[in-house]
């Protein structure tokens, strides 16, 4: 799919191709240039933009919507064997990627994410969530309600909404959190809570503004 789900599908297909031996290494990601009036125009027509001053993703009840963000995020995914054989340092391990499409009605996003969590391997230890929520009414609340009771970080509160790049960026931030042993500090004025100890497993979510739901699980390398 295009937009957010393109980022999810790209990661999923690269992951599955590696698992099936259809390739050893993939460069996968997305990038988006928001600083174009045309980009704003498309989202303005749909009524998806927040006009009020900045607020974190989870604090936009007064004027739900997204701020577009520019950025790019790319990952080198590699079969563990080939990475080890060439002496590469393994930053984290991608355990699974789930990509799905629900016909959007109230409740469908929450249900789709619920199914996605069941479809992936269970996370253990100190778990966190790197959420790609947009801030759009309804679907953002559904996502928050579907998340496990663990520390959450909303990437769009920091980066804006980078459409195709949001999910790869979420994975990159999850990897860096695992590698460095700390999540980003809670965003000011948000519901994000301090995390205790080093994270061991991080779910990355994507709920497209129009369509598509994605979930990945990344765990510590060692």
């Amino acid at each position, binding site marked *: *799919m*295009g*937009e957010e*789900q*393109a980022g*999810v*599908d790209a990661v*999923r*297909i690269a992951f*599955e*191709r590696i*698992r*099936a031996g*259809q390739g050893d290494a993939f460069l996968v990601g997305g990038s988006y240039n928001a600083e174009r*009036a*045309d980009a*704003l*125009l*498309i*989202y*303005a*027509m*749909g*009524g*998806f933009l927040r006009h009020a001053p900045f607020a974190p993703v989870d604090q936009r009840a007064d004027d739900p919507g997204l701020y577009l963000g520019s950025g790019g995020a790319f990952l080198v995914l590699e079969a563990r064997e080939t990475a080890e054989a060439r002496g590469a340092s393994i930053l984290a391990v991608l355990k699974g990627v789930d*990509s*799905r*499409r629900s*016909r959007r009605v109230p409740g469908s996003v929450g249900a789709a994410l619920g199914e996605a969590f069941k479809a992936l391997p269970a996370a253990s230890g100190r778990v966190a969530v790197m959420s790609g929520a947009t801030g759009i009414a309804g679907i953002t609340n559904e996502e928050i309600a579907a998340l496990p009771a663990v520390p959450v970080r909303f990437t769009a509160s920091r980066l804006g909404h980078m459409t195709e790049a949001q999910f790869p960026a979420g994975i990159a931030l999850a990897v860096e959190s695992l590698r460095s042993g700390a999540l980003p500090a809670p965003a000011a004025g948000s519901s994000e809570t301090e995390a205790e100890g080093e994270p061991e497993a991080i779910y990355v979510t994507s709920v497209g503004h*129009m*369509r*598509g739901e*994605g979930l990945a699980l990344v765990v510590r390398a060692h």
Partner: protein
Amino acid sequence: MKDAKGRPVVVVTGMGVVTSLGQGKADTWSALTAGTSGIRQISRFPTAGLKTTIAGTVDFVPAEPFCAAQLSENFARLAVDEAISEAKIGTKGAFPGPMFIAVPPVEMEWPQREALARASGATEAVTYADLLRAADTGQFKDWHNLFLFGTVADRLADEFGTQGSPISLSTACSSGATAIQLGVEAIRRGETEAALCIGTDGSVQAEALIRFSLLSALSTQNDPPEGASKPFSKNRDGFVMGEGAAALVLESYESAKARGAQVLGVIAGCGEKGDGFHRTRTSPDGMPAILAMRGAIEDAGLTPDDIDYVNAHGTSTPENDKMESFGCMTVMGERMKSVPISSNKSMIGHTLTAAGAVEAVVTLLTLRNGRIPPTINYTIPDPAIPLDVVPNVARDASLRYAMSNSFGFGGQNTVLVFAREVKA
């Protein structure tokens, strides 16, 4: 049944196509083998002052609003309908597998911008601030979805009931072949037993034409329109934009056999190779295209000597045809001089995003019918291209294996190898 590499054999059980030559395989095939051109004067927007005024437009499919995104969706729908009807797979509105669809980049076009400008009430020089003010009223809400890349796939997924997240993709002029490759790989890794692979393109609109024109990529020999696309000829001077769509139902041979489906052909191999040389130009040594061809032949468990026919990318640009000829000669050796190679684009133009899928359908029909569509407008041979291009007239031939090339701007090369029958 497994292939030589122990993977499920992937067969085609349904095909649909729309081109400037007609709707459906029967019309397109009879026109292609008659050497008929679908290239004509553009009538959908004014062309006065433009260097190129012709295209292989599909003018018999309506679209509302009339724009590339809607047109591409409508072409795809017709092709998918034909493919699924032929495959007799699943139940109505429930296709038992995922969708991979090559769609052109979509964008707001002038009629929509003008509508926003009118709605803004601005009378002097219109600015984006005016357009944004009009957009914020909510009266253009439907156009948000219309101009998202993923919308064609989303709507088709709703209508035909494909499974999972539909994959929209663009690898420029190899997109249609990439859609097929992704379907083949999904079946090979056991993710699904069936896949719906589509390429569609209805991009003949003013801005797209002008952009290709600015790249000096288009033929300017507008008169007569049907003579403009001259792949492999010495006097070739660029490609002609075309429109159309094709859809293929892919299945594992086991699944097709189990349900008694008719097997229309085999997708035996896929090869891909990126070319980082330049945004639009190909590597001077042709290696990425050569490696894509070799990769596809090797993936099919064949050798170059097995290839009986090449369905050329054959755009009619000076560079592509020379590079493609050189690449084929390198891969196949001297034998290539007697291997028939023809370009469907001589008749339907370059259907861009759809080309790889449209030409896959034509290649499968070529194998199945034992008849090779010609390269038309071949009157002045290019001495640098010593190939049998099946000039001007269709030819009967018994063929086992065929290769279809797709080489995209941006260095995206995808090659598919087809077999007429499943090897027992």
